[in-house]
């Protein structure tokens, strides 16, 4: 295995594009190193992007959104004084992953590129309308996070392409997001079901709504009909029931040791209700 530590993204892209065999990008390494150890992957080329300037920075964009470098860790996101005020759902989703030790290294972009259907940060990023900058030999383009995963362990990135930044849109007024997941214990487990909800209100009335489910299909599921069910109304019992029904109907889960199809489907509905209530109260100014 060859190990490279490029100083620029141009250099990194050239390395990725020119590499033969199996190539992996190393940011936090909390998935890559586990996969190497268990012989799931044996990279011929490992490209450590952490020496590239800016990859550790969380910065406000000109339009009031956020730009996260690709090596920004969960711990850095949780410790940031302002990011979690704008996007508490994204920060809490990332924070649910692994232990304190894992938080010190794991990155949301790594979580995305690993392609797990159960990745906690991914539904939250999609609900928030996050985008990634994809850079390849032909240049850079910005694409929504939801277009990256295409199946378990698979992304839409072409050979020679890497993700070079993550952006979150401006939070704007009266918005709130939330992420909940179900695991059978308190910490240190992989989502059986995850659910992210992002709302915007005008007074008590919902004007924008996005719901995304995790771990109930080969990729995160954007429940587009959630907007139709919620926009123009308050989050009353009927709205919650409609949302819960939509969540259940959007599930296409597997049966495995962590949860049956029936259990996952039911839980998706329960989490949809609960996450929507939290997002709604945050949109109304709650800070918890």
């Amino acid at each position: 295995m060859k190990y490279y530590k490029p100083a620029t993204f141009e250099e990194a892209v050239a390395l990725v594009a020119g590499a033969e065999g199996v190539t992996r990008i190393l940011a936090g390494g909390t998935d890559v190193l586990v996969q190497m150890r268990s012989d799931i992957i044996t990279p011929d080329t490992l490209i450590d992007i952490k020496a590239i300037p800016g990859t550790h920075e969380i910065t406000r964009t000109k339009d009031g959104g956020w730009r996260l470098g690709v090596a920004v860790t969960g711990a850095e996101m949780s410790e940031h004084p302002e990011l979690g005020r704008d996007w508490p759902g994204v920060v809490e989703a990332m924070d649910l992953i692994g232990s304190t030790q894992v938080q010190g290294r794991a990155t949301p972009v790594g979580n995305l590129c690993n392609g797990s259907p159960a990745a906690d940060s991914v539904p939250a990023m999609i609900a928030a309308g996050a985008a990634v900058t994809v850079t390849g030999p032909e240049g850079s383009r910005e694409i929504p996070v939801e277009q990256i995963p295409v199946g378990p362990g698979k992304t839409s990135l072409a050979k020679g392409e890497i993700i070079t930044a993550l952006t979150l849109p401006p939070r704007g007024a009266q918005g709130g997001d939330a992420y909940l997941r179900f695991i059978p214990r308190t910490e240190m487990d992989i989502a059986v079901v995850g659910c992210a909800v992002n709302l915007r209100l005008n007074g008590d009335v919902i004007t924008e709504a996005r719901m995304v489910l995790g771990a109930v299909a080969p990729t995160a599921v954007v429940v587009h009909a959630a907007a139709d069910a919620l926009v123009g109304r308050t989050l009353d019992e009927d709205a919650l029931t409609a949302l819960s029904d939509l969540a259940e109907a959007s599930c296409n889960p597997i049966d495995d040791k962590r949860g049956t199809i029936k259990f996952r489907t039911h839980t998706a509905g329960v989490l949809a209700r609960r996450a929507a209530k939290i997002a709604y109260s945050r949109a109304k100014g709650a800070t918890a």
Partner: protein
Amino acid sequence: MSKTHVTTKVNGDEVEFLCDPRETLLDVLRDRLHLTGAKEGCGTGDCGACSVTVDGRLVCSCLMLGVEAEGKEIGTVEGIAEGETLHPLQQKFIEYAALQCGICTPGILVATKALLEKNPDPTESEVRYWLAGNLCRCTGYDKIIRAVMDTAAEMREAS
């Protein structure tokens, strides 16, 4: 396989080593630098027995490559005591018998020292969440938590 030359600091001392890029920081610490305090429990970041700090940040040394240590400051359990004088956490762990087989203890000491530096007055819940990634199969955790809470209280009084 060509080896990479790495310069880093371990417990304040500058060290150099040559390592294969596939070697983890844990392999390097144990096999090249002969610091065997950090233990390999699982090798996959689940058990925390290999916990060290890197630039003050708690990480699993099994989930980091040795080559990534270039220019960093590594802290291991060997650097916790000052000479013959044990760190208050080490003293309390003995006093409370907060260990049995001892395999998890170096990782738990490194982890709790990092916690108390960040938060000198943690609640019991905060200690338990912080240590969720440090598995102990002997103690049932209760003595560990009590030792940490008592150390924190004593260190607050002393400061």
